């Protein structure tokens, strides 16, 4: 029972990590209809920059994080200036391919600037097992994962506040609802895109810090983008709560399947389990758990 509980909890924590990446996808998809394949690479790039700034200039994390955030905002502006501006009204597949191109560029630039070896990201987040839970309930849970869960919760609250209460947030929701109508009442579409890419750059930074602290900053970090896809399918492409819930379901499902079904049908089913789960789900409910209903029959 304890073992099952541990499996579920570590699955939940992994799910939180997936959700962190998935939120970045959702933000951009909602505001501009662009499916941003580069989100995972953005997380890698942010983590690389953070480590690089801390190492090169010997500054503490509290200075390095705002600097990295500044870099991500610059990236957002560059993306808008050089790419999105020119691709308005192109079909979604072209925009999707463009973000793959962007992923290549970011990856290469990150490697050229900071080197491609695996780096240790240590910004003072606690590590190791939580003693309190281990002593009292005999549960083995990483402290870092608890921090990740708390950070994700805070992030969602902040984003929700930002979207619901601020002027910019309202504009963002207007754009997500209807591009044309938003334009007609004087909302600058490009301004919104820049903000949205900056915000998802921020989310990428948070995801990068969490994943980087967990498993080191390395190339494989960019591949978590692929893991976020089934999360999006489950939760719906346009819903932030969906991204969280989808992430949790995928995380738990994966871990439970690996441990309980793995011995029978072979190990490493983690690689594809999420996709098959998402595929099965798609056939039943194509819009995801919380996505907007697509009123269209194929």
């Amino acid at each position: 029972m304890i073992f099952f509980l541990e499996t579920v909890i570590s699955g939940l924590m992994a799910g939180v990590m997936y959700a962190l990446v998935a939120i970045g996808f959702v933000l951009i998809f909602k505001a501009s209809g662009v499916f941003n394949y580069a989100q995972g690479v953005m997380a890698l790039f942010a983590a690389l920059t953070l480590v690089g700034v801390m190492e090169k200039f010997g500054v503490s994390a509290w200075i390095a994080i705002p600097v990295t955030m500044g870099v991500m905002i610059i990236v957002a502006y560059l993306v808008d200036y050089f790419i999105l501006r020119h691709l308005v009204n192109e079909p979604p597949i072209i925009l999707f391919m463009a973000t793959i191109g962007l992923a290549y560029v970011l990856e290469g630039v990150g490697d050229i600037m900071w080197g491609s070896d695996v780096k240790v990201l240590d910004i003072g987040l606690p590590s190791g097992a939580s003693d309190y839970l281990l002593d009292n309930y005999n549960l083995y849970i990483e402290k870092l994962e608890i921090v990740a869960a708390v950070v994700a919760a805070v992030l969602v609250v902040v984003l929700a506040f930002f979207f619901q209460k601020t002027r910019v947030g309202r504009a963002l929701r207007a754009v997500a609802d209807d591009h044309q109508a938003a334009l007609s009442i004087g909302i600058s579409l490009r301004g919104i895109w820049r903000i949205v890419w900056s915000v998802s750059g921020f989310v990428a930074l948070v995801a990068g810090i969490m994943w980087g602290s967990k498993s080191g900053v390395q190339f494989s970090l960019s591949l978590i983008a692929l893991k976020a896809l089934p999360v999006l399918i489950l939760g719906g492409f346009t819903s932030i709560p969906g991204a969280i819930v989808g992430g949790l379901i995928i995380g738990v499902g994966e871990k439970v399947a690996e441990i309980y079904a793995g011995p029978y049908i072979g190990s490493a089913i983690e690689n594809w389990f999420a996709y098959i789960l998402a595929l099965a789900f798609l056939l039943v409910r194509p819009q995801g758990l919380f996505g907007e209903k697509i009123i269209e029959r194929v």
Partner: protein
Amino acid sequence: MFYFESGQFKKSYREDQAILPIRQDRIGIAVIIAVAFGGVPFILNDYLLNAVFIPALIYALAALGLNILVGYCGQISLGTGAFLAVGAYASYKLMTSFPELNFILVILLSGGVTACVGMVFGLPSLRIKGFYLAVATLAAQFFIIWLFNKVGWFYNDNATGQISAPPRDVFGFQITGPAAHPVATYLFVLTFVTFFALVAKNLVRSRVGRTWMAIRDMDIAAELIGIRPLQTKLTAFGVSSFYIGMAGAMIFTIWLGAVEAGEAFNIDQSFLVLFMVIIGGLGSILGSFLGAFFMILMPIALKQTMVDGLGMTAVSAKHMEFVILGVLILVFLIMEPHGLARLWRLGKEKLRRWPFPY
């Protein structure tokens, strides 16, 4: 002046519907094919044949397949790498289980097997489309590669987990295995690709191809005029996978000789072929060839200039290659989203009036 069709009158429906209605086009294509068969293998050295022409032609076949699905039928697929793997492993199993089987038949049957697998993974396309479908095909990508790595039957339980191609002859010339001569393999691949490009060209002009395009342009309207989405989409998945499977079989048997599913057919391959299709031009047979040659040649050319020309280390050249590749893709998408094939069409328009534009 030279590319001008005035005076060429069509006197029958047959002539009117020819693949190449203009005489200059016919001459041009004939020259290209003649050079490809008679000139290229004897002018170029073995390295160029092995490293550029053979893979480019094989990938052109894969790009043709994907173009049928994405460009003509409008269904996005990110599972190309897996379908290439299915072709490769099917050919391996066929060659080891039936050593007497003719090699041409092996390739065709591998395509057939892949077509069946492709149709199974095409089933979700009946309910979902767009990015949702892309994710569904990603499921194929990860599941199939995992299957090939896990189940020993597929690689005959050998210790390395690799599969390697046994030597085979076609018409007395060795085609696969280390002793095969590049010229022989090149001519074999070229014959195959030329034939199937012609088939594809005719297919997309036929009833089947038109139903694909109708579904692509507007599925509901297509349904209303009596096109069955089920059959149309599944034939597109089937034909597309058939081409991709043949390409996969050839990548394994002819080009690489020995592969391991997780390495040779990972998700990067899916993106590579998709890039070929997009850069070459969606919905264009010619574009598939242009895109394949572009995507194969460019990394080699970049590496040559950076490592040998500018004296960079291999590692930093690799990173630079990533950046340049990404930038080129972006520039391409921004300047000409319709691909190289569109540039060629524009060029032809210009050529008609050249050198006297008025």
